C-alpha cells in the first residue's frame, strides 16, 4: 500500500474498502465507532455488517443483539442499504474451525471434549483476536457484504491482535508439541525418554492431570496443523490486502494516545498503514484565547462571578490545548490519514439515535447536505 491511497475522509474510506478494522485500546469507543461506520455504509446504500466484541449491553440491545449470535442478524431501519450485526462468540467460532479441519467426526469430538482445548478456546491469549479475524474471513468469503466493519478486542498489546492467527500455529510448532508427538512418529527411543523426563518435571509443578490433558490434546490435534496454518496465512493475506483499511480509534488523554501511538507503530511494522484516526471524547475549545491569559484575568478578578467564569474558561482551554498537544505527534505519525474529532457527548451512546449523532461528526458532509 502506498501512502497515496490514504482517503481524505471517512466517506471515501467506506467507498474504497471492503473491510474496515477498528483498532485501539479499551474504553475509547471502538465498538460505537464500528457501529457508526457500518450504519453510515447502510445509509450509503451498501450491504454492511458490523462484527462486535463484547459491546455494552444497551448498545447491543439497540442493534437487536440479545446475546452471542455468531451469525449476522439484520437491523431494520430507515436506510437505503442493509445493516447487519454480529456479536462474536469466540468459543463456537473455534469449535466450527476445528470441525472444519478435522479429518473425521471422531477427531473433532475428541478435540472438542478435551479440557486443554476448552482452555485454549477460552483463555489462550490472542484466541479472541484470532477468532475475530477468522469470523471476518468467513463473512468476507461467504457473506456477500459490500463493507464489513470489525471491532477488535480491547487488548493492551497490539502484537496479540496482529499475531493472533500466527500465534496458534506457532503454538502447534512448539518444541514441546514435537517432543510429545515424537513417540507416535517412530522417533528413536532416546527422544521418547527425554520427553518422559520433561513431562515428569512439568508434572511436578502443575500436577499430572494438566499434563495428561495437554498430551491428549496434542495427540488429538495431530494432522490438523496444516489446515490451521494455511487458514492463518489466508487470514493474514486478507488483513494486509489493499481493500482492508485499519482505523485507529483513540481518546485524547495522554496515556491513551501513547498507547494508540504504540498501536500505529506495531501496525507499521507489519506494513499496515493507519488509514484514519478517530478521536472520541474531545473537550470543546471555547475560544482562541490563550489559557494563561484567561487564568491571569481570573486571578485579577478573584472573588467576582466574572472571575469564576474566566477561571472556568481557562480550565477548559488548558484541557483543549493539552489534548491537541497529546494528539499532535500521533496525527503526524499517521499522516496523511485524516484525523476526525468527536466531541464529548452529553450521554453515552446506546441507541441508533446516539449512533446517528456520532455519525454527524464522522461524516459532516452528508449531514451538511
Amino acid at each position, binding site marked *: 500500500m502506498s501512502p497515496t491511497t490514504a482517503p481524505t475522509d471517512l466517506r471515501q474510506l467506506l467507498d474504497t474498502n471492503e473491510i474496515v478494522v477498528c483498532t485501539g485500546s479499551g474504553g475509547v469507543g471502538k465498538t460505537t465507532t464500528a457501529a457508526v461506520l457500518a450504519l453510515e455504509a447502510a445509509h450509503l446504500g451498501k450491504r454492511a455488517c458490523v462484527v462486535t466484541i463484547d459491546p455494552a449491553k444497551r448498545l447491543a440491545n439497540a442493534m437487536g443483539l440479545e446475546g452471542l449470535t455468531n451469525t449476522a442478524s439484520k437491523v431494520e431501519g430507515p436506510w437505503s442499504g442493509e445493516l447487519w450485526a454480529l456479536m462474536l462468540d469466540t468459543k463456537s467460532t473455534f469449535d466450527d474451525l476445528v470441525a472444519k479441519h478435522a479429518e473425521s467426526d471422531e477427531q473433532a469430538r475428541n478435540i472438542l471434549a478435551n479440557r486443554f482445548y476448552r*482452555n485454549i478456546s477460552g483463555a489462550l491469549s490472542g484466541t479472541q483476536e484470532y477468532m475475530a479475524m477468522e469470523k471476518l474471513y468467513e463473512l468476507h468469503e461467504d457473506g456477500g457484504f459490500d463493507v464489513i466493519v470489525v471491532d477488535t478486542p*480491547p487488548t*493492551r498489546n497490539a502484537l496479540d491482535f496482529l499475531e493472533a492467527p500466527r500465534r496458534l500455529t506457532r503454538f502447534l510448532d512448539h518444541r514441546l508439541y514435537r517432543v510429545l508427538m515424537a513417540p507416535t512418529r517412530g522417533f528413536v527411543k532416546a527422544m521418547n525418554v527425554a520427553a518422559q523426563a520433561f513431562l515428569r518435571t512439568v508434572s511436578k*509443578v502443575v500436577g499430572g492431570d494438566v499434563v495428561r490433558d495437554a498430551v491428549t490434546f496434542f495427540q488429538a490435534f495431530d494432522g490438523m496443523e496444516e489446515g490451521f496454518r494455511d487458514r492463518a496465512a489466508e487470514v493474514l493475506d486478507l488483513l494486509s490486502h489493499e481493500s482492508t483499511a485499519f482505523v485507529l480509534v483513540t*481518546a485524547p488523554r*495522554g496515556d491513551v494516545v501513547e498507547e494508540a501511538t504504540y498501536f500505529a507503530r506495531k501496525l507499521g511494522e507489519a506494513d499496515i498503514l493507519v488509514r484514519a484516526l478517530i478521536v472520541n471524547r474531545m473537550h470543546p475549545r*471555547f475560544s482562541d484565547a490563550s489559557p494563561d491569559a484567561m487564568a491571569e484575568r481570573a486571578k485579577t478578578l478573584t472573588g467576582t462571578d466574572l472571575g469564576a467564569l474566566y477561571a*472556568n474558561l481557562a480550565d477548559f482551554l*488548558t484541557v483543549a490545548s493539552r489534548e491537541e498537544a497529546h494528539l499532535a505527534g500521533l496525527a503526524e505519525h499517521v499522516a496523511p490519514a485524516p484525523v476526525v474529532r468527536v466531541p464529548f457527548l452529553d450521554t453515552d451512546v446506546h441507541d441508533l439515535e446516539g449512533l446517528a449523532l456520532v455519525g454527524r461528526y464522522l461524516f459532516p458532509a452528508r449531514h451538511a447536505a
Partner: protein
Amino acid sequence: MLIVAGKGGVGKTTVSAALARAAAMAGLSTLIVEVEGKSGLAGLFHQPPFDYEEVVLAPGGGPGGESDVRARTLTPDDALVEYLETHGMGRISRRLAAAGAMDVVATAAPGIKDILILGKVKQLERGGAADVIVLDAPAAGHAIRFLRSARGLLDAVHVGPINTQAQDVLDMLTDPERCQVVLVTLPEETPVNELVETAYSLEDEVGIMLGPVVVNGLYRALDGLERDPDEAAKEAGAFLHPGEADSLRAAAQFRLRRSALQHEQVERLGERLPLSQICLPYVFSAELGPRHVDELAASITTGIRGLADL
C-alpha cells in the same frame, strides 16, 4: 494490600499513585506493584521507567515524617523462575524456560500466570516488603479473571506447588484484614454500569472484600457560573472583548451540564452499589505530575477521614 481495579481509561494508575502517596504521607512505607508495565506510573512521578528491580518513585523524609513510595513490575516469567529457584527447583526452571514451556503450561492451566504474580505479591506481603502494597491490577474484565485465578486453579490443579500457591493466594484475597479491592470509575454511564457488575462478580466469585469506590474526574464546583457574563462584567467593572461573553457562557454551560450529569451518575452508583465513595477532582492542567498526584492524595486522605466520621 490494596488492589486497584477498573476498566481502561478511568485513571487506575493515577489513583494507584495517589493512594500510595496518601499512605506515604501518613508515614506508611508503600510499594506499588505494576503487572502490565508501560502504564505511565513512573512519568507521574517524573521518574524514568522501572522494571523488575524495585525503585524509589517518591522519596519520603521531610518535616512530616513521610515514607518512601517504591515501585516494581512483576511478570509471570520472572515470578516463575524466582519461585522455582527458591523452592529448590532451579534446574527445572531453567529447563522450562529453555523450552518456552510457559505458554503450554499456561494454556493447560489458565490463570497460572496470574497466580504466579499474585503468589509473588503474597510473598511480598508476607515478607513485610512494605506497610502498604498497592497493586495496579490489569484493566477491564481481565481484573476479574486475574483475581478469580486462584479459585479456578484450585479446581483444575489438585496437587503440587501450584495448588499450594493458589490456596495461599486465596487465603490472602479473602482476608479483609490483609487485602481490599479499590474499584475505580469515572462518573459516566458505561463505566458506572461496568463497575457495578465487576463489584458483584468479585464479591460473589472471589469472596474478596471491597473497599471504598473511587470516582475519578469530577469537575470541581465553581460558584458564579450561572451568571450572565455581561452582567458579571458590569458588576466587576470589567470590559469584555467582542465574542468573549459567548465563550465564557458556552464554557460555563458545558461545565454546569457535565457536572449535573456527573452527579447523576455518582448518585446512581450509590443506589446500585452500597459501598462508600471517595470522589477525586478532574485535573485541569497541561500535564499530570507529582504535584497533582499529591493533590489527589490529599483528596483521598480527606475522603477517607470523611468516611471514618460517618
